[in-house]
């Protein structure tokens, strides 16, 4: 099924995509807005179907969200459409989405891609036990479903995202047994010039800190969840103090009883679609592969603009600014109206610069340090899908001679399962680099020609792909 032709197709209806669609509509373009979810919001403004009010207290920036949703009323929306690939054609692009096993083609002259990101994970003993969630997973259960991940929850990893996750759980009645931040928040103090101009972030951070104090949630920096325990579900974790390189300080281990765990170590951008259209990438401060964009959010592929986490993890406020820039530029090239196409409004440039400086300070304050590798035992699963243990991955490098992430994958099957390395890709690349003594390859697992599961019959209709 082919839809009518659009000037701009925006893929992703989170903060970045919504801002892009709003800007493109405002510039007079015919806009298609496509998202796999049933409603707008993305991960950031996730809410129960049709009921934002139910979780309004867990959200920030809802005024922006509501205004965006009103504005995109003038766009043609394709919710519940999971985009599996994008094709470059003579007249622009064809976005290929699946709905209940059937393909829908959306043709457009230019594109804005705002695919977002998901939690970056590090393996640790017991992380495959039911009851261990990604921080974003616990958040999605809460914000999207009003379900608590557990009654007694331990939150850990690194980065400011741990704070809203913990305070949201506490606000809805969970006992949060502790927030364990592997880095030291003192890093922020050293980077005040990047923090102070972004007043909203400071207020938000202070709000979470106050909420945690109110609920008497212990916050420990330089600590991490280093093991989860239980037979069929998690019943406790081991928490330990870390040294500067994240090695466990001997004798500091403590057992904390819990029925759920939420962990996250920053974010990994979703790059399937930008890579499918051939966008050039770079490596960001946090070690993530991201799309390279210019002042107007233009990628290396003419007609393709990228906004939000895919061009550098930086949060919803930055995504909103980037989306506004991208939507405006994409509309200008598609409609041929040159007015202002070359110049990005100075107000947006200033906001983007400040928010990017903040993001950079965040990445430098909350890096992943090498010591986590020592938390693993030979039995610890690295690849959850194919059940590949650290011991088997090590065999691939030490005995079978793999010297890069790709050959380690072929020899061990790490990253070959259902998730296609989305979860273990980062850790596998880190481990293979360390064990083989070769450089870390951040993008080793990023390319996935089929972005979402599709029926084989559908693939067979595309002999050229």
């Amino acid at each position, binding site marked *: 099924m082919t839809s009518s032709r659009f000037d701009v197709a925006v893929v992703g209806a989170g903060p970045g995509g919504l801002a892009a669609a709003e800007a493109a509509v405002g510039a007079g373009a015919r806009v298609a807005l496509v998202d*796999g979810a*049933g409603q707008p919001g993305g*991960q950031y403004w996730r809410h*129960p*179907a*049709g*009921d934002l009010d139910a979780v309004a207290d867990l959200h920030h920036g809802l005024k922006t969200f509501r205004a965006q949703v009103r504005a995109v009323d003038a766009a043609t929306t394709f919710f519940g459409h999971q985009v599996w690939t994008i094709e470059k054609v003579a007249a622009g692009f064809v976005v290929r989405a699946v709905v209940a096993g059937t393909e829908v083609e959306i043709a457009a002259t230019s594109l804005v891609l705002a695919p977002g990101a*998901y*939690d970056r994970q590090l393996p640790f003993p017991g992380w*495959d036990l*039911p*009851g*261990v*969630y*990604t921080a*974003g*997973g*616990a*958040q*999605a*259960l809460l914000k*999207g*479903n*009003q*379900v608590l*991940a557990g009654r007694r929850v331990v939150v850990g990893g690194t980065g400011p995202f741990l704070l809203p996750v913990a305070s949201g759980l506490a606000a809805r009645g969970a006992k949060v047994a502790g927030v364990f931040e592997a880095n030291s928040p003192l890093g922020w103090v050293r980077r005040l010039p990047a923090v102070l101009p972004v007043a909203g972030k400071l207020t938000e951070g202070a709000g979470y800190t106050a909420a945690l104090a109110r609920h008497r949630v212990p916050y420990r920096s330089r600590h991490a969840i280093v093991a989860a325990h239980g037979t*069929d*579900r998690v019943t406790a974790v081991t928490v330990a103090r870390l040294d500067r390189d994240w090695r466990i300080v001997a004798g500091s281990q403590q057992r904390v009883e819990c029925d759920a765990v939420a962990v996250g170590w920053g974010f990994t951008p979703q790059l399937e679609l930008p890579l499918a259209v051939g966008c050039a990438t770079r490596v960001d401060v946090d070690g993530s592969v991201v799309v390279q964009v210019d002042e107007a959010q233009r990628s290396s592929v003419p007609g393709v603009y990228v906004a939000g986490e895919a061009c550098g993890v930086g949060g919803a406020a930055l995504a909103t600014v980037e989306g506004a820039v991208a939507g405006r530029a994409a509309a200008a090239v598609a409609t041929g109206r040159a007015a202002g196409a070359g110049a990005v409004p100075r107000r947006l440039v200033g906001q983007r610069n400040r928010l990017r400086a903040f993001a950079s300070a965040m990445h430098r304050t909350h890096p992943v340090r090498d010591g986590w590798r020592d938390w693993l035992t030979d039995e610890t699963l690295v690849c*959850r*899908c*194919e*059940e590949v243990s650290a011991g088997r991955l090590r065999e691939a490098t030490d005995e079978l001679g793999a010297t890069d992430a790709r050959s380690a994958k072929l020899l061990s099957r790490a990253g070959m*399962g*259902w*998730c296609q390395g*989305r*979860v273990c890709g980062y850790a596998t690349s880190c481990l293979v680099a360390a064990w083989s003594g070769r450089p870390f390859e951040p993008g080793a697992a990023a390319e996935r020609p089929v972005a979402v599961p599709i029926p084989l019959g559908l693939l067979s209709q595309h002999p050229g792909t």
Partner: protein
Amino acid sequence: MTESSFTFDDRRVGFTAGQTVGAALIGAGIRSWRTTRVEGRPRGVFCGIGVCFDCLITIDGVPNQRACLIAAQPGMAVRTQEGGGRDQLAV
């Protein structure tokens, strides 16, 4: 809010409109509904947003569906998924 229900391995699980199958199961205190293909280990939701495929489940006879993405519907027959979920095809 309206409360409806589906069955999970013949047990009744309630949900509110718009909840996913995975969220409804967790809300009912159920943490796992799949066994892994190699070691037969229990799995449930991990990423919660459709990325990790840990929460695969059999719904109305169709295996390998992501419980964290599928909206619960009244009367669904939801079952634990063993291994790849297609044991009937084994040779």
